[in-house]
């Protein structure tokens, strides 16, 4: 008798428990469903473009010929952004974690986070109205003196609205992501390793080179990958800054286009097969960024298991 009175209690409490845990479970599953739905609905809407006869697609040579140049353009812009942002971001992260005075460090970190808070369309407007104008003389110089390199082949754009400018704006936008992730990793370096290096007479740079960077390498790699994911999918910086065109090797002429900007510029006025084509382009972008992000997350989780950092 006592046993039953202990195990069975008020029905209201038990129902509450069931409803609550059920709701929590449903919310979790909803997220999985949404991600699955993203893929599903994009595929459903993209099928007409993938199966349509080649001459119906913009450009008249089929979907593959349409998507290929803008995939390359997306990669070019993202690579420029990473090449510029990575060294600066690691430097900033090191500055905040190991160089800045302890009392200033968190405030400075907040300043860098402000970079992430500025909306992308404002960056785009800044890139188009300010940066492009300021930087176009430099392109003229590059075309004159480095023109023998295919990437700096002249004649340089006089408006400065080139893929290189777009890449620079992108690099500003991915900088805070790489910085904040690498900063976290740098701060996790075992204190004993650092102190041991310093006790052996290492200078601060030698300590960082021997203790901090080897420990943080997987973390830095995944931070770069996450930055890459962001740079690949960023729309406004490219849509507003770049004066787009056909695929060209030169970074300082107008030309090239990225997937995200292509969608943003054309989707609002699109109809019929064009909508499907653009959604298919979005699907391609989704697959690329998904792969990049999954690799990055995989590197992070693998690192967590081995380092004991958590």
């Amino acid at each position: 008798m006592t046993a039953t009175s202990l195990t069975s209690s008020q029905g209201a409490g038990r129902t509450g428990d069931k409803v609550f845990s059920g709701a929590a479970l449903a919310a979790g599953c909803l997220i999985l469903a949404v991600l699955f739905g993203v893929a599903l609905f994009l595929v459903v809407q993209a099928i007409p473009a993938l199966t349509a006869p080649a001459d119906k697609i913009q450009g008249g040579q089929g979907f593959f010929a349409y998507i290929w140049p803008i995939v390359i353009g997306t990669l070019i812009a993202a690579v420029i952004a990473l090449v510029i942002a990575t060294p600066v971001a690691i430097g900033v992260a090191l500055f905040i974690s190991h160089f800045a005075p302890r009392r200033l460090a968190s405030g400075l970190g907040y300043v860098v986070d402000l970079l992430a808070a500025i909306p992308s369309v404002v960056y785009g407007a800044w890139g188009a109205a300010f940066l492009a104008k300021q930087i176009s003389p430099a392109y003229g110089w590059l075309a004159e003196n480095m023109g023998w390199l295919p990437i700096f082949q002249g004649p340089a754009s006089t408006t400065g609205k080139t893929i290189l400018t777009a890449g620079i704006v992108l690099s500003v936008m991915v900088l805070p992501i790489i910085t904040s992730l690498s900063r976290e990793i740098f701060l996790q370096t075992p204190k004993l390793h650092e102190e041991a290096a310093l006790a052996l007479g290492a200078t601060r740079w030698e300590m960082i080179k021997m203790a901090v960077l080897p420990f943080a390498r997987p973390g830095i790699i995944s931070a770069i990958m996450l930055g890459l994911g962001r740079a690949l999918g960023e729309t406004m910086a490219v849509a507003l800054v770049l004066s787009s065109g056909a695929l060209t090797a030169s970074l300082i002429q107008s030309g090239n286009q990225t997937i995200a900007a292509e969608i943003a510029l054309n989707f609002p006025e699109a109809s019929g097969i064009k909508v499907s084509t653009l959604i298919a382009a979005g699907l391609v972008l989704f697959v690329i960024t998904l792969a990049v992000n999954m690799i990055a997350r995989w590197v992070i989780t693998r690192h967590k298991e081995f380092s004991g950092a958590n």
Partner: protein
Amino acid sequence: MTSTLTPVRSKRSALTKGQLPKYAPYAVLAAALIVGAAILALIGFNAFGWGVVSALLFAIGLVSWSAAVEGSRRAKDKLATCLVVGSFLVALLPLVSVIWTVLVNGIPGLLDPGFLTTSMNGVTGAFDNKAVEGGGPVMGGIYHAILGTVQITLLATVISVPVGLLTAIYLVEYGHDGRLAKAITFFVDVMTGIPSIVAGLFAAAFFFVVVGPGTKTGAVAAVALSVLMIPVVVRSSEEMLKIVPNELREAAYALGVRKWRTILKVVIPTAISGIASGVTLAIARVIGETAPILVTAGFATSINSNVFGGWMASLPTFIYTQILNPTSPSNPDPSSQRAWGAALVLIILVMVLNLAARLIARIFAPKTGR
């Protein structure tokens, strides 16, 4: 006395031998500034070039002096320090430049009478041409865009917060690190990386299939923003729920309180400051998103207060269209003035939200009693 003092002095110099004097960086900086100014005076002075040249001279001077006196290891250390500090300064440049550009260009637009209280309804290129030719004020405003942004963001918050918070509760309280919980964590991380335009395309494709082709309303945009917002809410709430001490839960269980009441009455109130600040940051993140709204809500020039019907304007898309397709193609200046004004309003909104998040976290932080 003198005989005891001299060995002490020589000892001190032996200890500091092979080191740069303490004033070395300041001396090199002063020299670099002067020489930099001299070089710039020869080729035409500007402040930015002066800063760059002086910084380079400072790094070269300090490192080579250090190499001469202290040896290559210390010199490398100095070089690394210069590079690290330099990269921080380089990172500040765009921040300062962006804020400066928006302030300079945005304040005239913001001070325009009626900018915050009127919409673009009926404002045509003719008004803009007149304004440029000196015949009238710059017409039009961003009231419709502010209204749209607030409505879309509110709806997105209403969708995302329950879903995100419940998921976080599942992960922390019910998941037990099982296979489903691991899958959800992984895919939430992956979802964080979905490009915003793909989220917009998803919402558009979803409503095209469910409601009908070409459906563009504020609600579609809100769904798109939720896709971006949910993972942020989940991550921040999960972190906050995790740091609630287990003793609190156990104390509640020991008093015979049901699990769901424990979560509602003990766990969430303890973590509410962190959760609220996380939600505020998530709002700040999505309020500036342009691409998803662009493909889901269309453009509107007039006030539309119905989220479920008709095209809707928002601040980011307003900026975008005013720059890319000026109201008067022959005289784009009034349009760009309105765009910068809107950009200033948007940045102020985002900064206020960020600040609010910090304040919430500080004010409502649980009292530790220690």
